[in-house]
């Protein structure tokens, strides 16, 4: 009896502990942790940001095909150690869903957003941190999810 009760408790506790992890792993968009970037003197750098959208879901592209859709948007803190020059978003796919009359521009699966940065002439050498925000709005074929903003942090070494 005691053995049965103990195993019941163990199952319950395992499930309890696993639930938040499962919820986290079920996020629609997962950002890959950016690796440390070494920034040479007086050079432009290209920093990729890699992310994955869960199968069956999509996010609107940076240039949605309908006015009402919320675009994918990456922004960098204005006071950061590097100046963003250009943000290159992934090429969208055009797909039709149950709720659209015609295909719309979306991204799904693995994708990469590349930012071109310029190093300001007065940037101090040493470690630094780039901070930004990735805002997206996701849907699947039957439902949509409120827009979300994910914090982005990229560690740098300024040479």
């Amino acid at each position, binding site marked *: 009896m*005691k053995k049965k*009760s*103990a195993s*019941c*408790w163990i199952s*319950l*506790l395992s*499930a*309890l502990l696993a*639930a*938040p992890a*499962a*919820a986290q792993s*079920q*996020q*629609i968009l997962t950002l890959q942790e950016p690796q440390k970037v070494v920034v040479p003197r007086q050079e432009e750098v290209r920093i990729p940001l890699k992310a994955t959208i*869960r199968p*069956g*879901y999509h996010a609107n592209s940076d240039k949605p095909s309908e006015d*009402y*859709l*919320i675009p994918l948007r990456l922004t960098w803190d204005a006071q950061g150690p590097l100046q963003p020059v250009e943000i290159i978003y992934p090429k969208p796919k055009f797909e039709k*869903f*149950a*709720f*659209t009359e015609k295909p*719309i521009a979306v991204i799904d699966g693995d994708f990469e957003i590349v930012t071109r940065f310029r190093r300001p002439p007065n940037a101090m050498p040493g470690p630094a941190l780039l901070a930004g925000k990735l805002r997206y*709005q996701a*849907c*699947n074929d*039957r*439902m*949509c*999810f*409120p*827009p979300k903003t994910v914090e982005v942090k990229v560690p740098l070494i300024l040479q």
Partner: protein
Amino acid sequence: MNFRLPGLTAFLCAALLALSGCASIITRGEPASRNARKAADRKPAPDFELKDVHGRTIRLSEYRGQVVLLNFWATWCGPCKIEIPWFVEFQRTFKDRGFTVIGVSVDEDGWDAVRPFLAARQVNYPVVISTPEVEMKYGGVEALPMSFLIDREGRIASTHVGLVTKKTYEEEIRQLLD
């Protein structure tokens, strides 16, 4: 070791249910419906008081005696845009039988986003702008569209998360009106 801790067991079970509930919509990603046919199983719809586009107060409890389709939606939600013309039609068809739709927009930009949308689609039922408190009362708005069909006694008869068919809504409305 003594494993007979009923209080703690109850707490852990409740916590587990709450946590699994949090992950449910996104985990499944499929439309979810809960239809309580038996009146005895229905829970009261939480009351709220919000302003409509004309500044009039919309209080859910004042619709007691009517069948209410409470629809959480947003202008950026594609599936919601499919349903809204159905709701306009239901409002026109069933209004005289004691039915109304109440739209609750979760748009962050509030009336700036919602007002032109309502005008363009000639929405003929009350629409209010949501608050975090109202969303919490309804279990949090994890996904849209999210609709609650409320009976004449102010109880939730069915819940739908995600796009379901027009026929599903229509059948449920007719059942509650009859």
